[in-house]
């Protein structure tokens, strides 16, 4: 290992920004995503109901703009956050479980091969 690598390591360590526990951030973002999703759906439905409840075009446009469009944006953003942080956690768990099961399966297979060879 050369001096360049050590220098790079030392510089990267110095630049490392310590963040709080990442798990806490994930929980908060998951909660925010869920709230955005619910509020977005609520706004969308509310906007739709308001727009259909009036014959005034200006009111309909305002209801669709502030309700349905904002709602849609919130639903998309909320869904993205929800999927990212709920699925991320699930996929990590699934990967660990998958590796564990594969390892056990291979161990059993090797043991069976060794047994059959004796």
């Amino acid at each position, binding site marked *: 290992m050369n001096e360049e*690598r050590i220098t790079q390591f030392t510089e990267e*360590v110095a630049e490392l920004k310590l963040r709080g526990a990442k798990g806490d951030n994930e929980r908060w973002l998951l909660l925010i995503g869920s709230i955005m999703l619910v509020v977005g759906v609520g706004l969308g439905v509310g906007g739709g109901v308001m727009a259909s409840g009036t014959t005034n075009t200006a009111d309909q446009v305002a209801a669709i703009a502030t309700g349905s469009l904002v709602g849609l944006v919130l639903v998309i953003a909320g869904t993205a956050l929800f999927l990212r942080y709920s699925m991320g956690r699930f996929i990590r768990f699934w990967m660990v479980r998958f590796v564990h099961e594969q*390892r056990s399966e291979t161990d059993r297979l*090797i043991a069976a091969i060794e047994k059959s060879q004796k």
Partner: protein
Amino acid sequence: MSAIGEPILELKNISASYDAISVLHDVNITVRRGEVMALLGPNGAGKSTVLKIASALMRPTQGSVNIAGHDLTGAAASELARLGVCTIPEGRGIFPNLTVRENLEMAARKGLAVSVIQERAFARFPILAERRTQLAGTLSGGQQQMLSLARGLATDPVLLMLDEMSMGLAPIVVGDLYEQVQAIAAEGVSVLVIEQFARTVLGIADTAVVMSHGHVRFSGNARDVDEATLSSAYLGTK
């Protein structure tokens, strides 16, 4: 050959607990550049907890973890791994259903070409080159440990931490592996080796720390670890 240099890992006044059970008490450990440090002690001494704390898999209740002179207590394990702090866990940590080559590819450090990683790994462990297409799970225990080391080296580590490398291996295989560890340290990589079997590792270590019941009982030159120190730690004798 690289001389032992500045501190790479410093654990200062570390205490840790699992819920209400205290497992480490005011532990101080310093691993210098290019040094092989043996962390010894019987089962339950707190060795693996030290490793967890050093690799940021666990937070100490007290004390600080300094890496290259910077306090990184509370850093994410993934960030330390990305920088070049490599931990090889007990049980080898390889993917048994991937081939040797695929295992090496999985460990590739960002920016390091797969061909370079393979070249380095196969130069150090020629047997892996012969078995590059073989499933890792079907390798012998010693070869799996070689692959595990090669995977660790693929991350271009500055600090390598090995947990119970000799577990389940024949003494001759362990001897060969520790020779490789010594060679890795000679290139300037700091190595912290956690071992239950003291004699195996003391032959190659520069410094040693002997722990029991979460306390450091001895810290110093590996050559100064005598029977009395080991008996005291392992058997509780005076």
